[in-house]
């Protein structure tokens, strides 16, 4: 009997056990294999932060009396500042303090991984063309998307388990008072929420990517991530933010603080449900839509400069313009909302007795009585993180010229390597300037509306630009000197580690030499008109020096082959 041509013979031989173990047996396994470094980073980073924080708390607040003083001070904080720092629940215990001080911030940083991974896992591969090969394997599209999604969920779960384990160890190693021990279940409960918040933001990007493409999907994911983090923190200061607060998953889960001995699993389940729904939407969208075909959405396109075909400077700037304006709008809206509520915020704080001493300890040197001071407190720290990430993304675009071998063609023209390095690097710096100008427009309009002092915060934004230029200089220097591929990891590590060190460094009274390692420690309080002269020089040296090292390095090394 002739074989039915509609039925292909099935191979009995499946992947070998070794292939499965090496992550080459399935799409799921390959996704985890590709995530192994990220798993270690996303699990190790929060774990180390918790260990460092716990060690310092154990040393600084070793007595019951000092802990009670800490509780009293924390409860004096106005609601807006409580939101920024995290709700102070049982801060007299090691777990409660860790949860308050770093627990609320970590999802917004670790979530960057989920947004980048889940926006790019399908759309990015489709753009590169590698997905065409994968979908022609005898696996359904739905299964491919599902395995990639589950692969990332597994990777996040493993990373969070590592973080939870290190948190448990921190409690056992550095607890000095009764109640300092952190049960493993509590640590797992805490990082379960962290992982789910990451996956929710990533899920938004995953659902959007098959429809709008990788770049816009990442933008949507970041809005969910950072917007979700910022909105509840400042909801009491702005009617707009107050209206948006119910949409924030960070807001839903404020009562779930297992490290502080308080659990509220129902909203956590809702976060899980929303994340799963977004994931399912992404799977269905990928299954139904043309591969790699994003919808036009011209209204979602950022304005950009003309093509920039004059020279490497204009080319670099033109390619970064849309992203620069996008980052500028995002950071600018955040800053404008803070600025708009600054006077009411400052007036509210002024009515609370004893708050000045606490603020002085948390933020030494900031005049909380002025709107500029509030902008410094409420915007500058996180705005610095966001601007640093923007600079990192521009450095990533710069590095792409070599990684994608565009540079081979450019440098086969009579453009000297040094000229390309300098002009393209300046293009990155110009993109940073453009971002900060857009931020300045938003903040300036917001401050000028009620007749406030515009000049001071705008000059402060100049420091923000210098900080971002220093980050870019470090990334360009590493990329030019060693290879383009390390430019983004180096710049990103500087941004995130500087931010975290500054967030926990002061309150833990870490040694000065440790605090000095953070770039953020050298910025002064520029939004409030207080400048750190030597710090600004350091930033300028890093920016210019990085560009010079990049130029020197690129002249002497091979281009990527």
């Amino acid at each position, binding site marked *: 009997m002739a074989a039915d041509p509609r039925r292909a013979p099935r191979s009995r031989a499946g992947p070998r056990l070794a292939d499965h173990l090496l992550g080459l047996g399935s799409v799921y396994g390959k996704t985890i294999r590709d995530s192994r470094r990220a798993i270690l980073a996303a699990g190790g980073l929060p774990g180390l932060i918790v260990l460092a924080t716990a060690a310092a708390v154990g040393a600084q607040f070793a007595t019951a009396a000092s802990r009670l003083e800490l509780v009293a001070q924390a409860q004096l904080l106005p609601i807006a500042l409580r939101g920024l720092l995290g709700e102070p629940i049982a801060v007299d215990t090691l777990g409660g303090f860790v949860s308050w001080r770093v627990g609320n911030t970590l999802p917004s940083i670790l979530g960057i991984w989920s947004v980048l991974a889940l926006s790019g896992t399908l759309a990015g591969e489709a*753009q590169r063309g590698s997905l065409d090969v994968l979908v022609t394997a005898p696996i359904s599209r739905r299964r491919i998307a599902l395995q990639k999604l589950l692969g990332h969920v597994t990777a996040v779960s493993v990373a969070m388990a590592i973080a939870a384990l290190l948190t448990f160890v921190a409690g056992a190693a550095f607890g000095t008072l009764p109640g300092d021990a952190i049960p493993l279940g509590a640590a797992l409960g805490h990082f379960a929420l962290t992982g789910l918040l990451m996956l929710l933001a990533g899920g938004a990007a995953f659902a959007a990517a098959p429809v709008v493409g990788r770049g816009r999907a990442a933008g949507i994911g970041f809005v969910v991530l950072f917007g979700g983090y910022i909105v509840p923190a400042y909801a009491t200061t702005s009617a707009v933010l107050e209206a948006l607060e119910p949409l924030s998953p960070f807001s839903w889960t404020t009562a779930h603080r297992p490290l502080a001995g308080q659990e509220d699993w129902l909203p956590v389940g809702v976060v899980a449900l929303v994340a799963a729904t977004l994931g399912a939407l992404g799977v269905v969208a990928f299954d139904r839509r043309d591969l790699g075909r994003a919808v036009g959405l011209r209204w979602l396109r950022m304005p*950009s400069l003309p*093509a*920039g*075909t*004059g*020279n*490497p400077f204009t*080319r670099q700037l*033109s*390619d970064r313009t849309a992203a620069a304006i996008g980052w500028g709008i995002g950071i600018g809206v955040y800053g404008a909302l803070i600025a708009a509520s600054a006077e009411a915020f400052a007036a509210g704080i002024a009515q609370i007795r004893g708050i000045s001493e606490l603020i002085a300890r948390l933020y030494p040197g900031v005049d909380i009585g002025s709107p500029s001071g509030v902008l410094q407190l409420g915007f500058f720290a996180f705005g610095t993180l966001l601007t640093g990430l923007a600079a990192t993304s521009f450095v990533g675009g710069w590095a792409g010229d070599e990684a*994608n*071998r*565009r540079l*081979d*063609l*450019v*440098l*086969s*023209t*009579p*453009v*000297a*390597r040094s000229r390309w390095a300098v002009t393209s690097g300046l293009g990155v710096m110009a993109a940073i300037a453009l971002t900060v100008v857009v931020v300045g427009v938003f903040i300036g309009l917001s401050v000028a509306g009620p007749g406030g002092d515009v000049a001071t915060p705008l000059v402060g934004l100049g420091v923000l630009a210098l900080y971002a230029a220093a980050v870019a200089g470090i990334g360009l220097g590493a990329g030019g000197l060693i290879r383009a591929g390390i430019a983004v990891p180096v710049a990103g590590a500087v941004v995130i580690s500087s931010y975290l060190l500054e967030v926990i460094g002061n309150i833990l009274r870490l040694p000065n030499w440790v605090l000095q390692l953070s770039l953020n420690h050298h910025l002064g309080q520029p939004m409030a008109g207080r400048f750190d002269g030597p710090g600004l020089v350091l930033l300028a040296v890093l920016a210019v020096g990085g560009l010079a090292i990049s130029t020197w390095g690129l002249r002497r090394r*091979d*281009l990527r*082959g």
Partner: protein
Amino acid sequence: MPPIIRTERLTKTYGTHRGIEEVDLEVQAAEVFGFLGPNGAGKTTTMRVLLDLIRPTSGRAEVFGIETTADPVAIHRRVGYLPGEFDLYDRLTGAETIEYFANLRGGVDRAYTAELVERLDLDPSRRFREYSKGNKQKVGLVVALQHKPELLVLDEPTAGLDPLVQHTFFEIVRAARSDGRSVFLSSHIIEEVDRTCDRVAIIRDGRLVQVDRIETIRLLAFQQVELVFGGPVAADEFEALPGVSHVASVEGRVTMRVSGPIGPIVRAAARHDLLDLMTRAPNLEDVFLAQYGRGDGG
């Protein structure tokens, strides 16, 4: 006249990985020089060293008499380069991409650029990311050719091009030679290389194994000879003849490879009832495959 390209014991290694080893090459003015070899043999490495995109581990390379590491910009002014793998700016159209590279060079004849775009049948209005592989290759070709460089360095220039455009491309190459310009190209279209190149180098495992004029290579190569007899003839009657190898005899049909003159074969065949004699001249592909031990009995 000094050679346009000259390498002496040129070696490039990537850590412990081999790139090229002691490559000695010369490409003359108004010469089309083919560079053949399988994937990973070292063709791209050689070309990237010539452009100073990577630096030699040892040995030296000169282009226009200028050492590649000494003044690469002076070399680049006179060179057009097409990489084997490249990506350009997603958001730019083909026309904008071409304009950008024209601006980087300066002094490009826009009319000639337009002529190239038309001859290669390129729609320059689309964004680069929307192009097919072949159309991206056409953009790269225009970028490499538009300034009428004295030397073209082209790495797999016909990859992705349809046969018509391939034909046009080789016409352009021949025209460049007629203008006194030199072309150094690698290709897997051996038939076209055979027809277009003056000389060919074959590289294997990073080392040059043969460099010669096409005609010389053909002469040095074997011919395939087929004899048809009225009855069975033993193969061993031919095996002992000078230059003969790979003899096979099946029912009156004897095939063999012959290097050198075929007179002894004709005389030996004449002793039998010879009905027909056919010879096939070697082509570059035979030589290429023989160098890699993949030809018929190679």
